[in-house]
């Protein structure tokens, strides 16, 4: 049964292999600079995959993902610095607080039709950024919160930890997307009225999906706060949300694995183009425009689809002698 099946083994294996390669890359190449870049890339991966789960699958584009990121990061900073709690508290606290904001915003906004959900989320993120300045006694205003304790002192070890979180998050979302939950979210993207005619409470599904998406954006925010060791209102900036959405489109919207690849690709591309000096932004933008213009399904997911098709056909060629294996694999 293709529709409600488990994760396909090939994609999971490929994901795991890519994670291992990413883990050993800084060991082989060396340089603390690369570790930093890859840590940020992995955190962007968490943000992109959490965005894709809600917005990619349902087609309701969230232009305020930075709100959940900021809430998670500030939760980490506030608990760690102002309240003096140990840094590990940040992870559950950021998820809980970001989920709460997901509920708070999803409840009124996900009933809206058309572009209004996107606009409402965008405005909410802008408002939160202002609120950080207004309540400066608690949030540190423009300066933000400094001197956050690192979760793990060794940068390479912290990078590995973030990679593990990225792997688990992606696996969770991929599993959810393949479950009946994912099927319903894709159906919502297809036609809301038909979903209602199928007996599904679509608003509930959308709100819960936004809550899950927000929780992991918040977790990524906390990881980012403990990497930068400070938080500032800039975290809520709309440009962060736009960057994430771009990564998802480059990766392949609605494919879960794709956006993670998109996040890694674009972060590394930004860094790789540093040699071009002032031309960097222009080259980056032109590449982006070309990708979005000529490859509307993204880059990462379609390439993987082709590789997979090649692998499957070669496996089927050799697998003819082992019919039992195939039968159990498809059961």
């Amino acid at each position: 049964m293709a529709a409600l099946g488990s994760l396909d083994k090939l994609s999971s294996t490929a994901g795991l292999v890519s994670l291992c390669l990413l883990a050993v890359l800084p060991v082989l190449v060396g340089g603390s600079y690369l570790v930093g870049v890859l840590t940020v890339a992995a955190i962007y991966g968490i943000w992109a995959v959490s965005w894709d789960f809600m917005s990619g699958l349902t087609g309701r584009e969230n232009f305020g993902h930075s709100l959940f990121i900021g809430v998670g990061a500030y939760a980490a900073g506030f608990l760690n610095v102002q309240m003096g709690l140990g840094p590990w508290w940040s992870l559950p606290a950021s998820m809980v607080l970001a989920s709460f904001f997901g509920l708070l915003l999803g409840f009124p906004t996900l009933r809206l039709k058309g572009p209004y959900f996107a606009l409402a989320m965008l405005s909410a993120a802008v408002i939160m950024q202002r609120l950080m300045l207004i309540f400066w006694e608690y949030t540190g205003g423009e300066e933000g919160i400094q001197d956050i304790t690192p979760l793990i002192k060794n940068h390479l070890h912290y990078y590995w930890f973030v990679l593990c979180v990225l792997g688990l998050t992606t696996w969770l979302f991929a599993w959810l997307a393949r479950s009946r939950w994912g099927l319903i979210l894709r159906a919502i993207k297809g036609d809301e009225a038909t979903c209602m005619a199928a007996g599904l409470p679509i608003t509930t599904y959308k709100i819960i999906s936004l809550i899950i998406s927000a929780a992991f954006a918040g977790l990524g925010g906390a990881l980012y706060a403990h990497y930068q060791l400070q938080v500032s209102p800039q975290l809520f900036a709309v440009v962060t949300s736009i960057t994430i959405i771009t990564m998802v489109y480059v990766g392949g919207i609605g494919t879960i694995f794709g956006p993670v690849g998109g996040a890694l690709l674009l972060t590394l591309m930004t860094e790789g183009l540093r040699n071009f000096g002032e031309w960097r932004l222009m080259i980056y933008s032109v590449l982006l425009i070309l990708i979005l213009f000529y490859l509307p399904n993204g880059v990462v997911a379609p390439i993987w689809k082709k590789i997979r098709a090649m692998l499957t056909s070669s496996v089927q060629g050799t697998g003819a002698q082992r019919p039992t294996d195939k039968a159990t694999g498809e059961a």
Partner: protein
Amino acid sequence: MSDYLLDVKQINKRFGGLHAVRDVNLQVRRGEIVGILGPNGAGKTTLFNLLTGFIPPDEGTVNFQGRSIRGLKPHKIVNLGVARTFQLCRPFVGMSVIENVLVGSLGPRVSDVDLGARAMHLLSEVGLAEKADTPSELLSYGDLRRLEIARALATDPELLLLDEPFAGLGSAEIESISALIRKLHAEKNLTILLIEHKLREFMQLVSRVVALDFGEVIAEGVPAEIVSHPRVIEAYIGKQTPEALA
């Protein structure tokens, strides 16, 4: 408690100055196939939307199995056992045929463990089994109708509302969809309410007809009575003679 499966009394809906549905009464007994007849703009689809919760009525009562379903959300009504199809087929774009049917079986009414096998069975009932993995947007119009019906059946309904099941179909397809509706009625003990204005097949299919014009019930009875009813002829067919209808 009434002995009707569906009991609609004095239902009204206005859109601004337009009185789209006016004081409509409609009773459907278990096991009947009832047809709603009327020219374009008579308020047939609005009536369906009122019954299925897509539009809230202004006045009136809607009882299903003796309990009021007026004002309930569409998904709640579906989960009580009232399924519908749409006049314009609305498949889930980007999903395969079987996935479309599966979505219909994810509500609380269906407790079947093997949903995949159930969906496949429904597809074979409507004659789409061999197209299970086809993307739904590649289906022909007739197959889309079958898919609509399969998806409605997936919710395990007691009452099935079909909104113009023959619209846009050729005569061969009309014949086979008509046979399908008859088969479902006989085999699944389904009660069916359908809207149509393709007279010939419609009249052969239904046991009772409610004729609407300008949002009002103008006649009610068995098909033979309806086709010779002067108000129906006037409103719906103009100056044609009743013989031309049969």
